[in-house]
């Protein structure tokens, strides 16, 4: 697998279970040594500069576990110490992270007494103790209720936007990937199957958008199909399903066509393809 992630970009790693996403993050965070190949993180050889690189990166994973007897503040302090943050600087950092992730009220609650959502917030807070230049997120919102997941996504988004942190995230949540990631890599069987911006990937796969129209009148399928940007067409007596490359671009000409043919439209719906369609196309 060859993958090069530019500085300051929010990357998403998508793929089915067992594709190798978590393995890749584990290799990048120096927890797993690959049998062969070269890993360069922040421009340096990971094997030769492991300590220096580990100091500048951090990782957060879904279903995170921390020392069960330590409370939230103590866990953050412990990991801040492991990253070498001295006295006052450490206290300040821990305080900032408690505020950033709304963890202040849980500061003295032991890890084994926290809810799943709060554990996940702690995991993210822990991953920021060293203010990393590269942040590795392994399914950061897995198993969370929608509200907590949304707040965690917002926190991640702010982090990327405000600090310009390079983020590499794995997720099974396609909407999450689409809303957060600037670039997406689809992985399957340890190989990158596709790489690019979400929009480009959809275009590449000719997934397009679907326009559903109910009408009354006589529709000439052949003429409609000849319009630019039409990938496919299914018609019945009173309805049709048109697959177009981009509905923003194609809808006006389709409407013009219906008007020109004096076909009366009763109902019109547009369904945009999303990353889930891309995911399914790639994993088939």
């Amino acid at each position: 697998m060859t993958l090069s992630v530019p500085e300051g970009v929010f990357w998403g790693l998508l793929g089915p279970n067992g594709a190798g996403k978590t393995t890749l993050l584990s290799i990048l965070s120096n927890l797993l040594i690959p049998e062969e190949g070269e890993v360069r993180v922040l421009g340096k050889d990971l094997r030769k500069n492991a300590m220096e690189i580990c100091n500048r990166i951090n990782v957060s994973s879904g279903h995170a576990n921390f020392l069960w007897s330590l409370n939230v503040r103590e866990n953050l302090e412990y990991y801040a110490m492991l990253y070498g943050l001295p006295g006052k600087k450490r206290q300040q950092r821990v305080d900032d992270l408690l505020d950033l992730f709304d963890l202040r009220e849980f500061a003295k609650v032991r890890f084994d007494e926290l809810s799943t959502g709060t554990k996940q917030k702690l995991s993210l807070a822990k991953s920021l103790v060293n203010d990393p230049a590269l942040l590795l997120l392994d399914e950061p919102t897995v198993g969370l209720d929608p509200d907590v997941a949304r707040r965690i996504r917002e926190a991640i988004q702010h982090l990327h936007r405000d600090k310009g942190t390079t983020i590499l995230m794995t997720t099974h949540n396609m909407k999450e990937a689409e809303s957060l990631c600037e670039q997406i890599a689809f992985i399957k069987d340890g190989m990158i199957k596709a790489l690019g911006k979400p929009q480009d990937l959809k275009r590449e796969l000719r997934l397009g958008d679907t326009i559903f129209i109910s009408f009354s009148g006589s529709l000439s399928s052949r003429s409609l199909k000849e319009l630019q940007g039409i990938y496919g067409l299914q018609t019945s007596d009173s309805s049709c399903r048109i697959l177009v490359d981009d509905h923003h671009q194609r809808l006006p000409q389709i409407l013009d066509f219906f008007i020109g043919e004096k076909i009366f439209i009763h109902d019109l719906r547009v369904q945009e393809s999303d990353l889930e369609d891309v995911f399914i196309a790639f994993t088939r």
Partner: protein
Amino acid sequence: MRMFLLLLQDEVTKTRAFVFKNWIMTKRNVFTLFEILFWPLVAFLSVGFLTEFAALQPAMKAFILVGVIAMSAVQVCQLDVAYALLYDVWSKAVKHGFAAPVGIRHLLFGSLIVGIIRGGSVFVILMVASYLLFGFDFTLPGTLPMGLFVLGLFLSAAMVGVFVCILVLVFGNRAEVAAWSLVSLMLLLCGVYYPVSVLPAWVRVLAEIIPLTYFLEYFRQFYGFQPIFSHVLVKGYVMVIIYLVIEVFAMKAALLRAKRTGLLLKLSE
């Protein structure tokens, strides 16, 4: 100079992390209190009353009580070194610790500090109890011999603790049983309740490669027991330091192996 101070601060902070972790885990868990109060006292009193019942001569009583007290201190101290890794294994948090830029030295020194505090507490408690209950004076050899003996015990404990960590990194969490069984093996081999001269020749060879054997021999000579081996203190220290250096490299190798085989990640699942 400033660079040196920053590096020193970094080393101290990372070492302190392991002190912090072990200390809080110790404070919060009942079993760790049992480890320094219940088990050592039960073992000590059982053996102490046995020496009374057997009406042993003071020298013989000293021989056995030195062994029991030393063993209890070593047991507790080595557990703390092993706990530096085992707490993470039990919490399934191994990967977070090893993703951080820390070395084996931080883990070893940090956990050993807590081990010395806990093992030292056991040592003092049993020393006082032995004086009050059985009239045994542990301070008889003097401050320096006692200091050298105790330091030898703690280095031996560090050696055992690191060995447990190596086993866990090689064989996974099923090797955690070594944290409690290795010391029992030493109890058998190092002459805790009897001189190593009574051991069969082939077992005595094993006793000779364990530093604790020499530290016990060294301290017991102040109670009238001539050492079987020569230069016991030097041999004990040289041996334990060589073992510790080898173990640090072995643990680095075990960690690399665990990263290659994926065991490090499995320990977090």
